[in-house]
């Protein structure tokens, strides 16, 4: 017994030891590379002229033509690159940026006057050729720009440089909001690749990329030759942490100055700042399937949901009960559409009426939810489920991850699906109801399961109108949808939370989620 248990003789022991040593060497060799690399700030004691920002995720790319992706846009837009125009998130008005003025020559022709004396980070001059190149590169090119699908979606246009500071843009069809659409085209020098995306772009913005240590941190530094007022922070250091409570803790322990994308339970405490984040939560009702094809049932769903209770308890008071997808400040918002009142008696009455008329109200309805779409997403759906059951409907919940949920959001929808309520959220950062109505309420919209020809024609007319007429036309379409179509149950205009250290002053606004302007951040005191 003792003999067999004895450790093998010396040569074998050496073999084992060398195997372990080799493993140890492999591990320690790697150890040096993590510990010593990267400019990431360690705890506390940041340079006074650097603002430290913690994001929920690393930008996958800083490609300007993908700046409509939140993770990319919030770093790129207005910091590294700029557009010809920019939308004021407060008033919704369009402001000059790299273009100083613009006018419509005919329904399909626009002239932009460009800012003279602007230079890109690489020293080349910004001119109409660069602007035309950037528009061509973003819209309808072969490189699959996210902005193209998001803002232009098949619109054909041609941009021509008349002289250094004059740009003409022609559209195939009249487009009254072309200058607004162009506020999404980030301008890059004509030397940028036109056949492939770039990861680290050159722009005209107040900051340029100093170092991107993939996986760890990203540093931007002030661009000395910036045409506008120099921003106060000399540099910005971005890191990313997936966990909200860690992001909040980083501000509390002085490892970061700004932490975004927080939930009430992340514990930001005194450092928390609330702001309307431009998102509106809603349930899409699939009105093509019984019992949801009966308007009484859709109305009953709206009456049954206690929006005040939902906002107060589940959303911790953050948000505002809502009746339409388009909030105030966005072209098309209708002040006539209010949040549905909570009236359970009326909901029960409508369900009973529908049942009496032969509508199969006991058909199970499935709520398709999405985990993490907003804080307490699952709890919100449980509250809705309870209310609808109380109103007399049969309701089940299925919570999915983003990609599985997208299969239900976008056409073509899964086959053999029963009646569904889809948990969704709509962002209004583009500032015009045109980006809402067609795709969500149009009968052929990418996110739409149901529409009416009357609503379709109202939307089409509104899309062609401009100015006050446009506002009125979209508002009328929204009112019609809310009263006569009832294709959804809008829940609330949502509120975002960010944490701010006492070192920094920054007023977040409705655009903050998609565009965090470093120039708006100032050292405190």
């Amino acid at each position, binding site marked *: 017994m003792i003999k067999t248990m004895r450790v093998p003789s010396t040569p074998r022991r050496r073999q084992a030891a060398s195997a372990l040593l080799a493993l140890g060497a492999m591990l320690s060799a790697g150890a040096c590379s993590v510990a010593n690399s990267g400019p990431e700030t360690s705890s506390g004691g940041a340079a006074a002229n650097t603002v430290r920002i913690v994001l929920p995720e690393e930008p996958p790319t800083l490609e300007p033509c993908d700046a409509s992706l939140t993770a990319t846009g919030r770093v790129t837009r207005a910091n590294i690159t700029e557009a010809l125009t920019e939308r004021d998130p407060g008033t919704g008005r369009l402001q000059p940026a790299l273009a100083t003025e613009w006018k419509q020559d005919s329904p399909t022709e626009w002239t932009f006057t460009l800012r003279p004396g602007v230079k890109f980070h690489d020293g080349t001059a910004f001119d109409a050729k660069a602007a035309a190149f950037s528009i061509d590169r973003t819209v309808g090119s072969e490189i699959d720009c996210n902005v193209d699908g998001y803002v232009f979606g098949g619109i054909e246009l041609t941009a021509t440089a008349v002289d250094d500071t004059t740009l003409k843009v022609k559209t195939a069809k009249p487009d009254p909001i072309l200058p607004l659409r162009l506020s999404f085209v980030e301008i890059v020098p004509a030397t940028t690749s036109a056949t492939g995306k770039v990861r680290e772009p050159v722009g005209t913005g107040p900051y340029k990329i100093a170092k991107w240590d993939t996986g760890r941190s990203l540093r931007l530094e002030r661009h000395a030759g910036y045409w506008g007022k120099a921003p106060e922070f000399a540099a910005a250091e971005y890191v990313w942490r997936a966990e909200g409570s860690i992001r909040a803790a980083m501000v509390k322990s002085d490892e970061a100055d700004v932490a975004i994308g927080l939930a009430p339970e992340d514990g930001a405490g005194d450092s928390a700042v609330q702001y309307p984040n431009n998102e509106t939560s809603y349930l899409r009702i699939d009105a093509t399937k019984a019992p949801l094809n009966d308007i009484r049932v859709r109305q009953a769903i709206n009456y049954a949901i206690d929006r005040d209770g939902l906002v107060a308890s589940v959303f911790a008071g953050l948000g505002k009960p809502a009746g339409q997808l388009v909030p105030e400040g966005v072209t098309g918002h209708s002040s006539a559409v209010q949040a549905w009142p909570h009236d359970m008696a009326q909901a029960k009455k409508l369900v009973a009426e529908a049942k009496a008329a032969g509508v199969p109200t006991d058909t199970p309805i499935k709520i398709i939810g999405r985990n993490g779409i907003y804080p307490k997403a699952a709890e919100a759906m449980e509250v809705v489920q309870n209310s609808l059951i109380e109103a007399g409907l049969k309701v089940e919940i299925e919570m999915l991850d983003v990609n599985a949920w997208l299969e239900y*959001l976008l056409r073509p929808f899964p086959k053999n699906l029963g009646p569904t309520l889809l948990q969704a959220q709509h962002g209004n950062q583009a500032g015009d109801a045109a980006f809402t109505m067609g795709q969500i309420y149009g009968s052929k919209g990418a996110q739409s399961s149901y529409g009416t020809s009357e609503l379709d024609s109202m939307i089409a007319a509104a899309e062609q109108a401009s100015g006050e007429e446009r506002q009125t036309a979209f508002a009328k379409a929204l009112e019609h949808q809310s009263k006569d179509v009832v294709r959804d149950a809008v829940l609330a205009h949502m509120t975002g939370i960010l944490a701010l250290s006492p070192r920094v002053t920054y007023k977040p606004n409705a655009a903050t989620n998609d565009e965090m302007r470093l120039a708006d951040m100032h050292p405190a005191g």
Partner: protein
Amino acid sequence: MLTFLRRRITSSAIPLVVVILGVFCLARLTGDPANLYLPLSATPEMRAEFAARHGFDQPLYVQFGEYLAQVVRLDFGESLRTAEPAAEAVLRAFPATLQLAGATMILAILGAIAVGSWAAYRPNSAADRIASFTSTTAASMPDFWFAIMGVLVFAVALGWLPTSGTVGALAWVLPVLTLLIRPFGVLVQVVRGAMVSALSAPYIKVARSKGAGELRVVFGHALRNAAPPALTVAGDLTVGLVNGAVVVETIFGWPGIGKLMITSILQRDFAVLQAAVLVTAITIFALNIVIDACYALLDSRVRQGVTT
């Protein structure tokens, strides 16, 4: 020994192939990545172009064949999310995980030997009971909870440690402690058990009667014989660490393979996911062989059992 290794490698290669095929097929069953990578309002033409460019319009077996042909040429494809080669992303992330797992296991083994031997030296004493209680608690502690509590106490309330990140020695403390706690708890129990029986074995009495000191008895004689079972468990725990660093890496922003895998699953970034799984599977496969080889070296019965 060579025969042993050859057989061991052959038998482990089958699960490796199954894992690679499984991940390839399962990933593609989870939905169309075009939904995530194209804007919501993308036209059907844009979707078709996207599918054609990435080969998703081909039948699954054609896609798998092409993938295997690529892998043979050491080409692991391109990330859908960042457009960089998948191999680069994986080779950047993997060392970070190995360092974390390596540092954790070295500390867990050293700590478990000290505490486990101490407890086994005087079974049922107060020291033994304290060690058993703490190791059981540690072994059953949810790492997510421990990580968040660690941050709240040591980073926010006391301000001793950074909440997360990878810069500086202090940044290692919370991630390593979080990862350490479970293997440490398990190993203390294993070492204690093995040492209790080793210390009561006749050869210990022989050693003592020959005048060996107590330290030499415990660490020179008993530990040597208690080592094989502890080594096997430590090996399994290391495999678990490499595989399961997801929570710790996500919470602490540690740019390792666990975090990369979870991101690539959520983003349906097939090439990166496949490369990450492949590298992890090969590492686990290699670790298992190293463990088996060490075990065989330490215990000739294992070696002979396989070779005869």
